[in-house]
């Protein structure tokens, strides 16, 4: 079964498991020290340095309204790339890399409809199933791309 990906980075947030395709992932970095930005939306946790560039970090749990257990441990930032654009998702654990051969497409259940247009697909393996979201849509709802009147743009529109 061709999923169109070589693998996925999976992580758990509250009671949900999410996955990011490796083609979208740019890397993982330690988000122990984030630079706070003034006057931004609450989901924006700050900015972090990734390979010489400043990358905005979005708290996914805060954005989705998931009540994750408060912990004082280390946090990590999963950087997503789309051409020259990058942003990162703030996650509470180091994600796991699952090869594509171990993943398969799963039918969405009724709860996935709550995600609306953020829902993209569901992947699963023998232990768990993972929600693949349109993460760039989340980013664009927070930080609209320059020159976009609607505040949102699809990857196809941006030539990616």
């Amino acid at each position, binding site marked *: 079964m061709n999923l169109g990906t*070589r*693998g996925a*980075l999976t992580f758990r947030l509250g009671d949900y498991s999410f996955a990011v395709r*490796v*083609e979208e*992932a740019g*890397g*993982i*970095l*330690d988000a122990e020290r984030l630079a706070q930005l003034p006057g931004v939306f609450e989901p924006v946790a700050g900015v972090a340095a990734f390979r010489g560039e400043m990358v905005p970090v979005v708290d996914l749990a805060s954005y989705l309204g998931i009540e994750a257990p408060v912990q004082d441990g*280390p946090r*990590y930032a999963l950087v997503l790339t789309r051409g020259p654009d990058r942003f990162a998702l703030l996650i509470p654990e*180091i*994600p796991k*890399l699952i*090869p594509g051969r171990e993943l398969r497409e799963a039918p969405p259940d009724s709860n996935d409809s709550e995600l609306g247009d953020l829902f993209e697909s569901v992947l699963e393996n023998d232990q768990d199933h993972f929600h693949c979201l349109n993460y760039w849509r989340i980013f664009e709802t927070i930080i609209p791309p320059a020159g976009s009147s609607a505040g949102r743009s699809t990857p196809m529109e941006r030539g990616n």
Partner: protein
Amino acid sequence: MAAGRDYREEDARPGQSSPPPAVLVTLAAAICAGVAGSLASGVMGWIAVGAVALGGAFFASRTAAPRKMAAELGRARRLLLLLDRGGSAEAKVPPDFVEDWAQVYEKVNRLSFEARGNPASGAQVEQFKKQVELAASLVRDGKDPLVEAPELRAGPLLPLLEGVKGSSSLPVVSHLSLGEEEELIGAGGDALPPDWPKPSSDEKAPVVGPAFEAGLRDLVREIESLRTTLAGAANGQTPSAGEDPSLRTPAQLVDAVVLTAADGIEDLAAGLMRANELASVAERVTNRATLLALNAALEATRSGSEAFAAIAEETRRLAEFAREATDTISRLSSEIEYKVGETITAIHATSNDAKTALAEMSGSSAPLPSSRSARVQVVRLLDRSRELLKSLGGSAEGSDSGPDGPISIRSSQEPRNSAQDNVENAPGPAEKSPVEGILLIEGLKPGAHFES
């Protein structure tokens, strides 16, 4: 005293006659020569007279020389004997008089010893003898030696004569003449007078100086102080129970054991906290290694390069190895923290049980335990504390029992107590947070501070 006693015993030996004087020997030799001359005639008669005369003279010289030497030695020894008896503390004489006798005796004794090989000392002995004879003759005549003989004022007999003058009872030696050997002690085999010096007619007490009285009072005061101190020690009035460990009570011993164990556990807990800090650092390093491995695997997956994938796989294994080691360290640290807290609780419970038992024994109508039974109880408490510490040491050495295994600090044959029941019935480390153990450690001793 010894010299006088030896001389007296030697002279009083029965059956031993003194040698004949030289005059008698010479007279006997002349008589023999005259008889020989009257019997013999001619040259042979004169030869016999001459031979008898020479033999008599030789015999007289052989007998007279040692007798003269013995007489001189005997005179000196008798003088020492008299001075020794006069300087004895047992003599009933005033203190100043005794001291004077002692000084004179010491001086004469030293001069006699030095006179054996020193002519100058011999001359001093001769001069001293003359002064003694002069002083004795003046005293015997009832005159004051210091007034009649001014040379005695500069001699060694001055303090003695002043003491004699100031004393109401004159010693016998003042009436004796050193030249009259038969009157001296031991010359004729006579024993010493029973009480010497002779008591005076009136029973007036001797004059005692104020310095002597003050010294005697000080001595009595010191002896009384020493007696009081010794009596207090004999009655068990120790200065402080904490100064001598052997004098501690069982309760104090239990406290000491608990404090010692608490100090050791506190040090162990401090080291444990430091180990936790290092473990957290190791965990951060492990996280970085894991991130590195994940990024490598991510790039290998994206690129599809097998070489990159191999490197990423090795990096992942290294990160997993570090992760396992860090997890093991963290788990052991948590277990040790938990067991330290439990041990502290058990020690406190044991201490309270021991104190309660001691209080009950002290307050009950039953007879108090003997020192032996008290020692046995203390030994049992010490063994119990040692077992608690051993359980702590076992947890630090190895954790084979696992976090969910029961904490056993005694064998099943041993009697149970409340503290041990608390330990065994307590939940395992997995069910109890290590922070509680730290809190227990912090509450162990006032002032203890741990940084988590």
